[in-house]
């Protein structure tokens, strides 16, 4: 991850998505839509990525906005479900729980993709991602209650990894 | 409003900052700036002293907020005197550090040194208790950096002890200031004095406890029994110019006692007036005896000087604790003497140690010292001055204190302690001097030729002040007399501080 490739000119918007996000964050932080803050927020949202651009050497281009949107809502829903499930498991008798570790072979290769996948797994029913193998080919997941290892793996790959691969395939 | 009280603060701070910013230009430039800064500071200090002599304390209200709301700087004769002593010491120490190339033994020497001066002068000039705390921290942290400058086993150990002990002290300081604020609701020294004068009796306990706790904090800085344990090794192991500057460090504590306790629990404090004084006297006497024994027990010259510094602190504690104008004035005279001479002695000790090579400053037989006669003569000179033998300033300082003690009930004890401890010191330095200079392996060649005439200038300058103090004893003691009068005039101090008004703002 070296950023040594010479830049001929400073791009004004190295990371447009980041700029958008920061702009929104500024307005959220100030809890306002006052014109002054919109201007100031925009200026900051442009400047900050420029200042921190060296930490973001690679471009992040998110394609397939629809997939992203769908993925987002799936995850939100799963989080709600996950909480019910986990609440039940926690409040129920813990002797009946059958915890276990699952190893998932990863197809997704983009680091950010792997990370989002790991996060998603942790937020959704009964699983917490625990470790990524050094070669980034395997993800170790702990399940609070493991009925069927294969099903869990399948569901994770199907529900989360596939859409994420689509999102990150272009980069 | 004159800005003179502020200059001794802003100059070292700006010099310190510039030194940091020009670091990349190399040591040569830093040395020049550092030295020029020190010279400028001496000049400003002399100016300040002259201005202070015009009578009223000079008040500088920072941020244009009048006391007690804003922080004020107060330049009176005492603070001007302390600032001048500090700058003289600093100039000599910097000169010495440059001549002996001590400043390149670690990073940021000159920056730390000037910021240390900022802290010291701040402590001397501020009129606000919490601001005093802040400046204590500034000068302490700078001193931490300086004491460790260059590193080494013993120095690190001594530095660690010094730092931890002072951190405990800082904590206690805050407890005391907090409690005082909790009752008095103010932080300005003059205003606190006003509030204490009107204090309801049921709050006496808290204020008195906080007052004694604060005394302890200042006593820790001043190295009063039983709080002086940080001092001997810290001074003995600090780099020479730092040790020289440290001669003023203990005096900061004493100054704070005179300033803060003298004002808060001074003549205006009703039943609480001077209630802390007996403790100064008792602890001063104990410190003196123990320190004199320490002088006897020292294993090396620097350690011995450190204990000698301790005896001077103890003498000052006694002088202040005598609680009379004459004694206070005498103490101020002795303070000037003891600080500058101790500084010079530390530098001299470093030159002696260098002249002895691997034998360093340990009291053991060594090869002859290069320039032994010159160094030996100055050793005798410094030893006479430090132990309080005639005809140098140490004797006159002690004599003035003793003369003032004649009126005190405990005169016999005070005199006996002071004289017996002097005897111990004489015996000790006679022994150490003879071990350092006489007990040499006579047929050996001297160790190297480590002697820097340039560096020696600093020693001469500082030690040379002793005869000046003797010859000009009359004008100087007249000065300390009038300083004492000014110090005891609490009403004037309080009125001047609280009635200095901000400059009218013109609203845009």
């Amino acid at each position, binding site marked *: 991850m070296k950023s040594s490739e010479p830049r001929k000119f400073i791009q004004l918007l190295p990371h447009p998505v980041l700029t958008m996000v920061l702009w929104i964050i500024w307005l959220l932080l100030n809890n306002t839509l006052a014109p002054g803050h919109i201007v100031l927020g925009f200026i900051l949202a442009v400047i900050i990525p420029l200042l921190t651009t060296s930490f973001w050497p690679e471009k992040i281009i998110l394609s397939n906005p629809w997939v992203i949107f769908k993925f987002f809502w799936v995850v939100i829903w799963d989080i709600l479900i996950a909480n019910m499930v986990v609440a039940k498991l926690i409040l129920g008798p813990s002797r009946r729980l059958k915890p276990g570790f699952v190893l998932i072979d990863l197809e997704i290769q983009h680091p950010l993709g792997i990370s989002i996948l790991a996060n998603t797994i942790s937020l959704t029913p009964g699983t917490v991602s625990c470790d990524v193998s050094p070669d980034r080919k395997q993800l170790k997941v702990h399940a609070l209650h493991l009925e069927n290892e294969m099903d869990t793996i399948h569901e994770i790959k199907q529900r989360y990894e596939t859409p994420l691969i689509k999102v990150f395939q272009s980069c | 409003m004159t800005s003179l009280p502020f200059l001794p603060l802003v100059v070292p701070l700006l010099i310190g900052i510039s030194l940091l910013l020009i670091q990349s230009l190399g040591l040569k430039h830093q040395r020049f700036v550092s030295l020029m800064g020190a010279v400028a500071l001496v000049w400003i200090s002399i100016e300040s002293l002259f201005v202070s002599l015009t009578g009223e304390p000079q008040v500088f209200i920072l941020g244009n907020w009048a006391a007690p709301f804003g922080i004020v700087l107060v330049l009176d004769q005492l603070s001007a005197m302390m600032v001048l002593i500090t700058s003289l010491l600093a100039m000599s120490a910097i000169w010495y550090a440059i001549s002996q190339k001590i400043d390149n033994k670690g990073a940021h020497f000159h920056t730390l040194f000037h910021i240390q001066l900022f802290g010291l002068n701040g402590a001397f000039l501020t009129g606000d208790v*919490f601001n005093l705390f*802040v400046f204590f*921290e500034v000068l302490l*942290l700078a001193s*931490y*950096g300086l004491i*460790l400058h260059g*590193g*080494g*086993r013993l120095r*690190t*150990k001594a*530095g*660690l*002890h010094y*730092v*931890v002990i002072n*951190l*405990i002290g*800082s*904590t206690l300081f*805050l*407890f005391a*200031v*907090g*409690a005082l*604020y*909790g009752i008095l609701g103010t*932080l300005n020294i003059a205003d606190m004095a006003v509030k204490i004068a009107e204090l309801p009796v049921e709050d006496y306990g808290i204020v008195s406890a906080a007052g004694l706790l604060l005394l302890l904090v200042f006593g820790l800085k001043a190295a009063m029994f039983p709080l002086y344990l940080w001092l001997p090794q810290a001074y003995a192991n600090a780099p020479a110019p730092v040790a020289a500057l440290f001669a003023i460090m203990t005096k900061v504590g004493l100054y704070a006692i005179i300033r803060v306790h003298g004002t808060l629990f001074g003549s205006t404090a009703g039943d609480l007036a001077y209630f802390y004084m007996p403790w100064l006297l008792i602890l001063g006497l104990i410190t003196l005896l123990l320190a004199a024994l320490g002088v006897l027990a020292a294993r090396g010259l620097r350690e011995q000087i450190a204990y000698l510094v301790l005896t001077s602190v103890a003498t000052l504690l006694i002088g202040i604790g005598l609680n009379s104008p004459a004694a206070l004035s005498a103490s101020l005279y002795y303070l000037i003497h003891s600080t500058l001479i101790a500084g010079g002695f530390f530098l001299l000790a470093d030159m002696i140690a260098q002249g002895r090579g691997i034998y360093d400053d340990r009291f053991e037989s060594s090869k002859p010292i290069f320039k032994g006669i010159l160094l030996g003569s100055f050793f005798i000179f410094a030893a006479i001055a430090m132990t309080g033998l005639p005809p140098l300033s140490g004797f006159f300082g002690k004599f003035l204190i003793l003369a003032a003690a004649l009126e005190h009930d405990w005169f016999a004890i005070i005199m006996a302690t002071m004289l017996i401890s002097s005897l111990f010191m004489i015996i000790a330095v006679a022994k150490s001097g003879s071990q350092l200079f006489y007990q040499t392996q006579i047929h050996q060649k001297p160790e190297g030729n480590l002697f820097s005439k340039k560096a020696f200038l600093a020693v001469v300058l500082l030690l040379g002040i002793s005869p000046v103090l003797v010859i000009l004893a009359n004008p100087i003691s007249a000065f300390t007399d009038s300083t004492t009068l000014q110090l005891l005039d609490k009403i004037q101090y309080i009125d001047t501080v609280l009635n200095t008004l901000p400059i009218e703002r013109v609203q845009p």
Partner: protein
Amino acid sequence: MELLVALSIGALTASGVFLTLRARTFPVVLGLTLLAYAVNLFLFAMGRLTIGLPPIIDPAQGQYADPLPQALVLTAIVIAFGMTAFLIVLALKARAELGNDHVDGLNLAKDEASLDHTLPPRKPQKQAGKTI
């Protein structure tokens, strides 16, 4: 409520004092940190305790907590942090120069032996739950 705060200050002070008096640098640093907590809380409490009256000028709010101790504590917190940073690095320096982490540089071989982290790496154990 004042009692709770006072007791908290007391508890922090007590354990701070005890740790400050220990023989190794690390507990001393922790002890001083605790003492700093204690004194900051103390200083803060000296402005008396008020609930829901932050000193942010607001026409709707008639009363305010005493802002001065808050400002003082803020200063004190930052200073204490600077001191801690310095001290902990000094502790490292002391370890480097003195060869151990005893505050007096004493080499107490007996108690060091059990803690020497240059022990050869152990073979992985099945039951490694109870760490430290």
